[in-house]
């Protein structure tokens, strides 16, 4: 008997603490939580700040119950991360996207403790390594560049906003101050050396042993060459240059190459594959849009400068500011962003598809017979439809609220059709709020090199794409992969636990600058440098605008870029396959 609907998603604190360190107390305190409405906590006798056990049909987890202004009775919110993934629904219904929102759940008080991050996955096949961060220190270098440098127009590499107006002061090879970044971008630039990996390692007898780069590359190449169905997953936090090499590597080893859009905007691709997509760059929107909808997204937390730089509050050429715009927010709860709305529409979880359909009908003046659709009174729907038709230039920004919930790709298909319909009346576009700073780029690279933007199976020697079958989430949940290369991502933190369980059964290579939950179950770890801080790299903003992120400090000695490491891997694999 389930009494709540569980949703998961980003928060500002989750993002900030992620950059400060995934193994930190701050991260645990901001992510191992469950936001509940005050009324619901009172009903169940749960004290604010006490531990609760959240149970679903798929698992259970202990987290801390908290309340906030962004809650609504009947809905509980756990920030995205390994704790949430113990209880989410792994079923993707053939879309590749597990059901990460709208899961029936129960909540009860508990005296059990909240597990540390790595303890969450300690019951699986391979024991996660416990990292003693006090033992890790950066290698001393023989020379440090000295002097103070002021970098302007720095490209921020955290979220899909890819703000390129940051100012960074570097003194004696250390970032000293950052201007114009949001709290999360700032957290990344000032904390990127936290929980850093400095030496390649190989897992031997349950321990991670430091090895030379050559040995690590050899081990990685052997794993990939010997595998029948390896997955090469992640990519979204590295450069296009690295992704282009990644596709070549996947093709050589006959693996599946996939990126984080599978658990993010993969469904947006599915919708686009059905009907196309009508969009514009962010500057076009900033300059002209007088009506902005945020549907199922929370930019104030997940894309903090978006409203100021590109949308609601931004100063455009034709539209001068907030006063000349109307903002509509659609969400299942009064999210932090909803307070900037002129019109807030609270939709029932999992019922967005019906609401969009009703809007399409209202736009065309069809009669809506029901007095309420998806929990929204008909009058409000008609009011919203009128606002949409009367706009001079409207834009629909959307996020996981549409991609992760019931309907998945069909929700997006319907949302795009709504926008296409609106073009009969006025100018209207739609734009997905992309999460990682280069997820758009890695989708683009995969598409031009293989023909498909994600979930590409190269095991037969040519690209095949069938999300649900060739998506890395489903492959891991089914236990079909026999090796994994994880780069620039942390699936152990963000895939459902059923996928992690199978990940611990196979050899895993991790290429990442920092320790992640996936590193704790890795067999080979190769540390690399940060794109946009230590190495150059081309990244695509959420609207596809390509920017070149540049290096502003040197990487630690011995640390190469993802590009260079992948080149070495490719060379090694080619040697093994075709001879020296």
């Amino acid at each position, binding site marked *: 008997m389930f009494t709540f609907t569980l949703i998961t998603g980003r928060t500002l604190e989750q993002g900030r603490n992620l950059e400060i360190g995934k193994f930190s107390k701050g991260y645990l305190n901001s992510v191992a939580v469950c936001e509940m409405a005050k009324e619901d906590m009172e009903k169940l006798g749960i004290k604010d700040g006490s531990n609760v056990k959240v149970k679903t049909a798929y698992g259970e987890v202990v987290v801390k119950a908290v309340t906030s202004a962004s809650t609504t009775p009947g809905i509980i919110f756990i920030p995205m991360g390994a704790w949430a993934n113990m209880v989410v629904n792994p079923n993707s219904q053939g879309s590749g996207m597990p059901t990460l929102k709208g899961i029936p759940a129960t909540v009860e008080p508990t005296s059990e403790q909240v597990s540390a991050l790595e303890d969450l996955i300690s019951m699986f096949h391979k024991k996660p390594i416990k990292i003693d961060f006090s033992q890790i220190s950066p290698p001393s270098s023989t020379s440090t560049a000295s002097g103070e440098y002021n970098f302007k127009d720095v490209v921020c590499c955290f979220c899909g906003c890819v703000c390129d107006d940051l100012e960074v002061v570097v003194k004696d090879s250390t970032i000293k101050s950052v201007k114009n970044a949001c709290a999360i971008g700032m957290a990344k630039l000032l904390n990127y050396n936290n929980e850093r990996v400095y030496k390649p390692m190989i897992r031997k007898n349950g321990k991670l042993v430091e090895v030379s780069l050559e040995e690590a590359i050899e081990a990685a190449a052997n794993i990939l060459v010997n595998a029948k169905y390896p997955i090469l997953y992640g990519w979204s936090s590295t450069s296009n240059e690295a992704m282009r090499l990644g596709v070549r590597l996947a093709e050589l080893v006959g693996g599946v190459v996939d990126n984080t859009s599978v658990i993010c905007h993969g469904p947006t691709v599915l919708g*686009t594959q059905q009907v*196309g997509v009508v969009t514009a760059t962010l500057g076009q929107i900033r300059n002209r849009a007088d009506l902005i909808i945020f549907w199922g997204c929370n930019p104030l937390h997940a894309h903090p400068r978006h409203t100021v730089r590109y949308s609601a509050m931004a100063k455009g050429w034709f539209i001068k500011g907030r006063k000349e715009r109307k903002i509509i927010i659609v969400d299942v709860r009064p999210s932090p962003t909803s307070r900037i709305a002129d019109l807030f529409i609270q939709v029932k979880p999992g019922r967005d598809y019906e609401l969009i359909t009703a809007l399409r009908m209202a736009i065309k003046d069809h009669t809506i017979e029901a007095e309420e659709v998806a929990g929204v009174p008909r009058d409000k729907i008609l009011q919203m439809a009128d606002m949409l038709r009367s706009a001079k230039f409207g834009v629909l920004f959307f996020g996981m609220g549409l991609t992760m919930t019931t309907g998945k790709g069909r929700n997006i298909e319907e949302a795009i059709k709504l926008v296409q319909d609106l073009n009969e009346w006025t100018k209207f576009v739609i734009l997905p709020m992309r999460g990682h700073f280069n997820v758009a780029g890695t989708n683009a690279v995969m598409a*031009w090199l293989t023909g498909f933007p994600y979930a590409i199976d190269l095991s037969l020697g040519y690209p095949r794409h069938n999300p649900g079958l060739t998506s890395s989430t489903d492959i891991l949940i089914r236990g079909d992969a026999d090796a994994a290369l994880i780069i620039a991502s942390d699936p152990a933190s963000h895939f459902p636990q059923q996928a992690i369980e199978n990940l611990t059964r196979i050899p895993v290579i991790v290429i990442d600058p920092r320790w992640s939950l996936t590193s704790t179950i890795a067999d080979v770890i190769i540390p690399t440098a940060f794109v946009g801080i230590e190495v150059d790299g081309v990244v695509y903003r959420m609207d596809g605008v390509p920017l*070149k992120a540049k290096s502003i400090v040197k990487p630690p000695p011995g640390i190469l870029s993802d590009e260079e490491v992948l080149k070495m891997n490719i060379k090694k694999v080619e040697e093994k396959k075709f001879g020296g």
Partner: protein
Amino acid sequence: MEWIIKNGFVYDPLNNVKGEKMDIAIKNGKIVSLSQVNEREAKVVDASGMVVMAGGVDIHSHIAGPKVNAGRIMRPEDHYKVYMRIMGNVRRSGSGRTTPSTNIIGYKYARMGWTTVIEPATPPLKTRHTHEELDDIPIIDKACFPLLDSNWFILNYLEKGEIEKCAAFIAWILKAIKGYAIKLVDPGSAEAWGWGKGVGLHCDEPIPGYNLTPLDIVKGLCKVNQILNLPHPIHVHCNRLGFPGNYTCTLETMDSVSGLAKNGLPSIHITHVQFTGYTGESWASVGSGGEEIAKYVNNNKHVTLDLGQVVFGEATTMTADAPFEFTLYHLSPGKWSNADVEVETSAGIVPYKYKRKNYVNTVQWTIGLEIALLVKDPWRVFMTTDHPNAGPFTKYPTVIGWLVSRKAREKTMETVNKRGLRKSALPTIDREYDLYEITILTRASPAKILGLEKEKGHLGVGADADVAIYNINPEKIDLSKDYKELVKAFKRAAYTFKNGELVVKDGEIVKHTYGKTYYVNCRIPSDLEKLVVDDVKAKFKEWYSVSLNNYVIGDEEIRSLKPLEVESSLK
């Protein structure tokens, strides 16, 4: 590596060679005289009984950039059945019929003996993406044309009559984003489309917000082109593309710059003229305007054009003519994509299928061929299918078959819509191209109109060693009767050389290489450049959502960059 191609029938119009038996020598990636090569050590290709020409040059084919990629992403169905497998360490994999992935593009062009291809429409703000894709296309040399007709800087300069500043701006932007020529698409319509307007914009209709008509933009940019001495004329996709009766717009556009030709060089290139060559008042009465257009071109030497020839079957329409794509979405309901680019331009994509029995598609099919066969000067007509708008580039051999053989045309005409045929002069035309003229159309003249005739499109000493050898014997084949053999030979070249390296043998890829990217570096007076850059700096922050420093593409970002140095006439 040194090569001698022995005993082939060489067709080299730029050097007046019309099928003579000659040896061609290759050394260090260039064509050299035979005496430069060590005949005992050089590798030999026995080209007896085969035709030898320079590698093909395609001046208009949508092969790279954000809208091409958007086409790939929205059309997974285009990739399921057409693919190439990885082959050892020689060939990479890919997929796609009308929106092929990058490796397939390079390989399939090379297999047909084509070695230089131009991406004709790139939005400056996203051109870094275009260059990344171009860099991942193997073998061929390439360049890209930035879309400039709806650019706010340019519209403002033109409105104020500041032609010199406009010219300086264009010299700056070509260098900044590594572009090659000035591209106009339904001039001004992209700015109108920023407000959802611009569908069917007439040549003489003012653009919303500006005291400018599309023809003002055409004339202004033509003047700029002359001032800058750019190697290629303005490359124009005329207004009202896709509308019945639009051939008049094409004539007006061509005529608007008739007085601007300089030094006997063409002042305007009209692209995919088929799409803007319709008579009639509606789709029910649409007919071919081919005769009228060909007549104008025959009487006016300042115009060149490429065909945009329709090939029946699957296509994907993709163009910066976003308002037109909105129209097509209504005419042919299905998928529709659109992507506006701030301050600059837009793009639309709609999958499409050309059907033989369809009246309109039949009329469309006749137009390109009609014009090619009625225009007397083969140096001013280029063969394209506006890939993938009118058909995929892989169908070029089929188009060549139609040009050389009346029988080939008649065979196709038996299968098409009879009423549509009656709206065109094509059934009455007997003319057949010969191999020499085909060489002009597909190599010599495109190289010349691009200003690349020193190193491309010919086999004289000093040319890049881009060579195509086809397995047809001009002494034994009657092209008119045996066009099928010609088509077969062009589908899979016997040999293709790129920069002196053998990349195709017996129609198969034998080497994976990368070519170079051309762009134009036009020198202007430094004080004028500074003035314009100051203008750009002042407005950039207010108009764009990126910093000017991050807009400019660095030389080191492109694999192998080759500037074409040009001196402007600016003082």
